[in-house]
């Protein structure tokens, strides 16, 4: 696998990532009866709410300390106090997360200190207030997500009696994925605490009565007991040590950590299921075996179609790793592997996975879509896999996009996309293969015509204009890769 890496530059053209506090909001939406406040200016939290709401199509309530000019000059603790009072009054949460925005960090706010003062002044010693310093300029939403999970564990975890449950710590997956992971755990009869659990809260059934905080989420009590667990399984092999919640539980409380890739694809799901079987001392249930067999059947059925894909995979590092690995298992080798995050471990982690990849693979960290676009063009990518901002690649380069991850803004159902476990992988693969097939069927007549008929010289008789009518003009984005001769 020849590889090439690039970082750089003064200007970001069409971002591939979001900011740290936005990522920090998500885990708090997966804790039971929790609310979250952004300490900073009003605008940031409104933008983030909009961004999240549009993906999940769920109400996303996030408080803001609405820092104004005065707060900026004299410090914002008054604003944050007021925000906490009001949020407690209206939402009656049992836990509040506090995240900071760039503004609060720039003026040097000490949120942890303010949070402590607040609890003391209000006489709320036991109330869980989880303050997380998440300057937007300090990292991407991926880092914000992990840091918020870790800080929650740090704030709540207490030495407890040993118990036979296991901790399952998950990255930003879809609610459908979380439900699938829970189903597998339940099939294998495992007692577990899954954190954060957005499976119900961010994919909420219509039900009465409506409550301001959606039902579901990891119980605070369960998080407190995580240190007593028999093991931690963390789907976070790209997670850096300093923000790894599983690592914290291991070093502070001696809970053995199994840091696994997201269970997507045969190998990674086998690892997960195998580990569970080992931990529970049981065997793999028949249902899962059948699902595995069906996945293999799907892989065989589709392998020749998948072999025609040249992929660009982008998004959160953890998901990028899982997708690349799954694609590679199926002979769909990526040409571009990109993340907006500064996380540089991806390349090394993927080295063994891509050992058999015949073509060149280009890695981009801290990247943007202008750069991804250029590389896609240079390497002849014919399928993009990632969040919906990749629609830019479709519009500009005619590359079809298989949507996956966060955010998905231009299609419905991002929260219901299932991609993990044997069954989820099967569904994911079908989406990918069908994207390739649709693209092929749309283009192959024109492609063959251009490639072979033209060379016969007969086109002088006016077939060019016919082509234009039948298949769109030269500028038609769908035809651009065809014209570049990249379609087989």
């Amino acid at each position: 696998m020849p590889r090439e890496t690039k970082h750089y530059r003064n200007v970001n053209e069409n971002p591939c990532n979001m900011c740290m506090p936005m990522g920090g909001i998500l885990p708090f939406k997966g804790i039971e009866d929790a609310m979250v406040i952004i300490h900073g200016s009003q605008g940031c939290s409104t933008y983030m709410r909009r961004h999240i709401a549009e993906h999940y199509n769920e109400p996303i309530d996030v408080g803001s300390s609405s820092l104004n000019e005065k707060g900026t000059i004299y410090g914002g603790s008054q604003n944050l106090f007021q925000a906490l009072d009001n949020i407690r009054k209206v939402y009656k949460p049992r836990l509040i997360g506090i995240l900071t925005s760039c503004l609060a960090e720039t003026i040097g706010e000490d949120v942890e200190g303010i949070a402590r003062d607040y609890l003391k002044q209000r006489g709320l010693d036991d109330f869980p207030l989880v303050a997380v310093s998440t300057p937007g300029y300090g990292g991407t939403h991926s880092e914000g997500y992990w840091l918020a999970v870790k800080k929650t564990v740090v704030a709540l975890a207490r030495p407890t009696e040993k118990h036979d449950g296991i901790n399952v710590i998950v990255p930003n997956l879809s609610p459908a994925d979380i439900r699938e992971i829970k189903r597998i755990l339940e099939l294998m009869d495992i007692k577990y605490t899954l954190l954060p659990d957005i499976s119900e809260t961010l994919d909420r059934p219509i039900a009465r009565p409506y409550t301001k905080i959606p039902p579901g989420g990891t119980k605070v009590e369960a998080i407190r007991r995580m240190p007593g667990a028999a093991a931690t399984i963390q789907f976070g092999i790209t997670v850096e040590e300093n923000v790894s919640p599983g690592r914290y539980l291991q070093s502070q409380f001696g809970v053995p950590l199994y840091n696994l890739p997201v269970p997507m694809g045969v190998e990674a799901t086998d690892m997960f299921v195998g580990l569970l079987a080992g931990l529970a001392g049981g065997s793999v249930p028949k249902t899962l075996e059948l699902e595995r067999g069906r996945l293999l059947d799907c892989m065989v059925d589709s392998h020749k179609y998948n072999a025609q894909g040249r992929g660009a995979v982008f998004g959160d590092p953890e998901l990028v790793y899982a997708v690349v690995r799954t694609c590679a298992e199926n002979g769909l080798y990526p040409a571009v592997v990109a993340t907006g995050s500064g996380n540089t471990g991806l390349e090394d982690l993927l080295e063994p996975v891509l050992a058999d990849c015949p073509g060149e693979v280009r890695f981009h960290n801290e990247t943007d879509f202008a750069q991804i676009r250029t590389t896609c063009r240079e390497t002849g990518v014919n399928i993009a896999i990632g969040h919906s901002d990749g629609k830019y690649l479709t519009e500009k380069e005619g590359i079809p996009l298989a949507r996956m991850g966060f955010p998905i803004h231009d299609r419905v159902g991002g929260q219901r996309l299932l991609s993990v476990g044997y069954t989820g992988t099967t569904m994911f693969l079908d989406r990918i293969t069908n994207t390739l097939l649709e693209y092929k069927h749309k283009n192959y007549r024109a492609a063959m015509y251009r490639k072979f008929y033209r060379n016969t010289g007969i086109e002088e008789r006016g077939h060019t204009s016919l082509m234009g009518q039948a298949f769109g003009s030269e500028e038609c984005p769908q035809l651009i890769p065809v014209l570049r001769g990249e379609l087989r």
Partner: protein
Amino acid sequence: MINVSTAVPNDNLIVERQSSILVKGRQRKNQLKCDAESIAGCVSQRACVYCGARVVLNPVTDAIHLVHGPIGCASYTWDIRGSLSSGSELYRNSFSTDLKENDVIFGGEKKLARAIDELVEKYKAELVFVYSTCVVGVIGDDLEAVCKAAAQKHGIQVIPVQSSGFIGNKSAGYRAACDALLRLIEPPGGPRPLNNGRLVKSVNYLGDFNLAGEAWIIKDYLKRIGVEVNVVFTGDSNYRDLKKAPEASLNIMQCAGSMAYLARRMEVLYGIPSMRISFLGLEDTAASLRRIAAFFDDPEMMRRAEELIEQETAAVRPEIERYREKLSGKKAAIYVGGGFKAISLIKQFREIGIDVVMVGTQTGREEEYQTLHDISDDGTVILDDANPSELERFMIEQGAHLLVGGVKERPLAYKLGVAFIDHNHDRKHPLSGYVGAVNFAREVYSTVCSPVWKYARDVGGGLYAAGNKALPER
């Protein structure tokens, strides 16, 4: 003052919010607190100064829109608006200086200067807008100086937009954008009334962002009655056209919330009078066309306007009537960005037989709230800078069948079993003019009368089974 909490008690209401909510006819005062800062922890639906500035300037198609700040502010605003272009697509990119920790500590001026260089080189634009964000406001980068130097270096216009998020709300952003536009249109040698060079029957059209081609629809109407649109502020506008703005003989202004200041300044600086118009709904569209024709005092134009009104109305009336029959008696709640939109929506709802029972805005101005109060029915809840919990409460108490709002409000309405209309800048169908009036009625019909409610309102019993009369009936 009798406030809402005594009129309708509720222990969830935040005390400081009381003066921003009133029920028409149930209070002595008709004054509402508005244009004030959001209260911490109220989960305001408002956006920031930068957002307001970006809304107004973004449709300038051939400009480089560069956000000077950390990445988030640019991520959340990448190509999220439905403004269409007949030319350049440059405005649909999101450019950011992507400030990192070090830039915040040591200042971002150099990075900004290099970013401008890089972009101008690559895209050969004649115009750059540089938006300031909160962090930039605090670290004190001298935007003016950097922009000035860059303008000289490249021989183009580089205009700073003072849109630091914490110095106010969205309306402060409108003003920052208008200031940027005034700088852009200023002719060499300073502004002056251009009485001689004035184009006789030409107008500037202010406050239409060409969402789903709305400005094109109106341009066509005006052309048909004999009025040329000189330039639209700012839908499908570009550097060259905006430069010609001082030559028009009239400014017609639709969205006053964002444009009133610009119109006022253009009257002072260039002697261009302005007129408020609205092309939302049949009634307003007809009235606006008549007023424009009356302004030019041209009998032929008036005749053509009448002809257009008659033709277009006849073409859409039957369809709208059909929807009206199905919809009459239903109740709507409105929560939108500005006062202008709220006022036109009340009128549009009346045209299809719907009563408005709750109306609020993020950034309405005092005189707009006065108008809202005047045209509302007794018992209507009027509120400024509402939050989800208030929206939930008043939609239910007032028995709304339908909410008009933006992306953040939609899921709340749906979860409550309330129909929903997107009245947002990302919409993909026009709501202006005659075609817009039909689209609007059709959208209202398709959501209010959808069969899904037959199933989705019954589930779980709870609220709905409790026989709460205030709840939307099916």
